[in-house]
């Protein structure tokens, strides 16, 4: 009985998935068409609906960023270009448009630390694969050494190399996760946003943040977020004025 129910559910999913994809494709095409006709707000609605349904892709975020750019909302344009690049590091169109939007908004960026600069030739996912591969090779080398009658220099050298690669990859993952483009990265979407010393609109200002500026969210208290700012200071920003780049 259970097997039959599972089989029916599987068949239902198998049949429903193509229709969902077809619907998403239709929504995407419609939004793109609205954009082409200059109906940017309608295009934004279309792309946002697609994103709300979980159909995330670099191109959708890129197109949404373009639509926001056309409406003059540079903060959200930059946010969506950043999202496109978070999904696909090498997205040339998003990189180019992000630079244009930043120049236009005079947005402030968080400078990457020197380890980030040296490690950015690979992505977090690539480092994850490298770490896993190095880990298992090291384990295999250890097993080989345990059962071999004599200690092979080659196997020992391979073990050391694998452990070094594993440590470096894990360090890189940690650096990226906590770094300027990590999971805490947020973009200022509001206009004339002031980072303040305390959670009050009357508190002294630490830094004026143009729309599209990068901040790193450190903690949240009520309607305020405590963030690391591009000038290495920290301040409180109204939560409604900043959005995380990485959607979870």
């Amino acid at each position, binding site marked *: 009985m259970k097997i039959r129910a599972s089989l029916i559910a599987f068949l239902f999913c198998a049949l429903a998935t193509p229709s969902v*994809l077809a619907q*998403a*494709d239709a929504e*995407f*095409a419609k939004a*793109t068409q609205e*954009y*082409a006709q200059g109906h940017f707000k309608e295009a934004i609605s279309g792309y946002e609906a697609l994103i709300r349904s*979980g*159909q*995330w*892709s*670099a*191109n*959708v975020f*890129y*197109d949404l960023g*373009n639509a926001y*750019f056309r409406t003059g909302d540079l903060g959200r344009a930059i946010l969506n270009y950043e*999202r496109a690049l*978070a*999904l*696909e590091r090498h997205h040339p*169109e998003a990189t*180019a*448009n992000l630079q*244009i*939007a930043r*120049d*236009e908004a*005079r947005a*402030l960026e968080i400078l990457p630390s020197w380890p980030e600069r040296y490690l950015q030739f690979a992505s*977090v*996912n690539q480092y*994850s*694969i490298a*770490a*896993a591969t190095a880990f*298992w090779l090291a*384990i*295999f080398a250890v*097993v*080989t050494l*345990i*059962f071999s009658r004599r200690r092979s220099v080659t196997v020992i050298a391979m073990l050391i190399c694998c452990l070094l690669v594993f440590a470096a990859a894990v360090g890189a*993952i940690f650096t990226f*996760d906590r770094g300027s483009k990590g999971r805490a990265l947020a973009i200022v979407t509001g206009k004339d946003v002031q980072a303040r010393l305390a959670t009050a609109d009357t508190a*002294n200002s630490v*830094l*004026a*943040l143009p729309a599209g500026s990068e901040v790193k969210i450190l903690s949240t208290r009520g309607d305020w977020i405590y963030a690391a700012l591009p*000038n290495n*200071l920290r301040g409180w920003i109204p939560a409604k004025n900043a959005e995380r780049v*990485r*959607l*979870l």
Partner: protein
Amino acid sequence: MGRAFLIGILAAIVAAGSTFADSPSVTAVLSNSEIVVGETVELQIKVTGPGDAQPPEEISVDGLEIHATGQSRQFEIHNFATSSSVTYNYTILPLRDGRFTIPSQTVRAGGKLLRTPELILNVADAPGRSSSARPSRGTQSQSVSAGDLLFAELIVPKKVAYVGEIVPVQIRMGFDPRVRPRLIEPPEITGQGFTAQKLQQSGQTSETINGRPYDVVTYKTAIAAARAGKFEVGPVKAKAQVIVPRRRSAPRSRSPFGFDLDDPFSDPFFSNPFAQMGERREVEIKSEPVALEVKPLPPNAPPSFSGAIGNFVMTTDAQPKSVQVGDPITVTSAISGRGNFDRVNAPVVEDERGWHKYPPSSKFKQDDEVGISGTKTFETVLSPNEKKQTLPVLALSYFDPAKEQYMTLRSEPIAITVQGGAAATQNVTGSQPPSPSPAIAIAPQRTQKPQDILYQLTDRPATAESFAPLYTRTVFWTAQLIPFLALIGFAGWKIRGARIDNREARRIAALHHEASELMHKLRHDAASPREYYAEASRIVRVKTALASGSSGIDPNVVDAETAADTFKLNTDSRDQLRRLFEQSDEWQYSGAHNGPATISPENRREVVELIENLK
């Protein structure tokens, strides 16, 4: 003998004196007739005269809480006349303010009824009372000690200030070093209408005040009034634990009739701390409040005024001084002086035309403990949009309370070189008729048209992507099962190989051992021919099995031909080997009586040599 006589005469005189002493009398006194609510006062009833006295057990007065605290007895000799007196102590705690009358009390002494006089106690309600200003004379031991052994003092140098003006404040707390004080609550300035900065301890000195030594701890802070009006700053409150003399069962006389009431140092505890143990008590220390008049700031503040009040100077520098259009120039403005630096904002650019200004950063280096004086440095990045010859003027306005007027500091024009881009605005306007007002000056034009964004992308991947890093996804960890299973298989394979190797090694070792044992027997034992040939053929079989290596031949199935082939023997040796096996079989299967009973040494040597040559 003479001394005993003298003592007897003196005793007689004392007895006579007592006999002829005055009749009993009673009096009552308050240690203080003017107190405030919360303070205690001591009532002492002194009965002079012979005999026992019965003091009033309870004195009840509405609004006063009166408790007996003990009694003390004194003997006095005046001109060979002795007198004794008993002092009964009561502690009075007023529960409210007002004028109280302690009625006459009846005391029975020497068989007579005596009456104390009526006493008047005035109790005031004064919230600003202070232990230092009002040392509680004649009250409880704790109060006496606290009042005279420690004090707090609030020093506000200014009596008039402006709203927001930083007023330095000093707090002095003095402790008699012998009470070994320990602050359990740091001093705090109470009051409303002003903000106070964090207290900073600035030093500790030893001073003598009114002939008494004190350890004086000085704290510094600053206050700023939040609104205009008249305020009371303080009092300063603190709590400390001090060691005071332990109260004795018969209290030391503190009355006007006996010892010095004002001097707590006369307590034996201080003259000899080991005479009796002190006890640690918690006391509150208060200072007197200080009046402060706060005036509002005058109207018509300059536009660049951000609330800074004090006295400041400004220096400005810029780096680099030679740039291209659009390049950043970092302008450093250092504001030094004395005032409320938390309200000193970055100097404003008076004319931003042709410039793009980025938000400034600031850092403050204070020169004193409380941050009233110091240097606040601002770094503002300016980017020229066109050719410029000087940096724009930076202005900072503040209110000078000494001069009672607003002041504006302006930076000197700093010459710079800007290359590229359009001509400077000044040059453009200079070629035109002079404009009467800056409002109609030509606005700078952008030198570059903003670049347009790239095209829209029309393709969309079939599968949705995820922001979650790979190492947080289930599929990543599920994939680790593949190498894990491979590892288990690899380890199993290695373990099996090791076991096989181990079994073979044990077999070979056993064969080696057997061969060596048999060889030893062949050389040394005088075995019968049957046993000798059997052992010899066995050695050949074992050696053949060992020599066969990985083929693993069983020694029991080895015959002469196999052994000869394994060791690649020549014809003679092959024949010898055959004979050896034949003789072994004969002795084994044809019985022990078909040949000689012993083997000749020559035969033994031949057999041993043949076996030793099997390599």
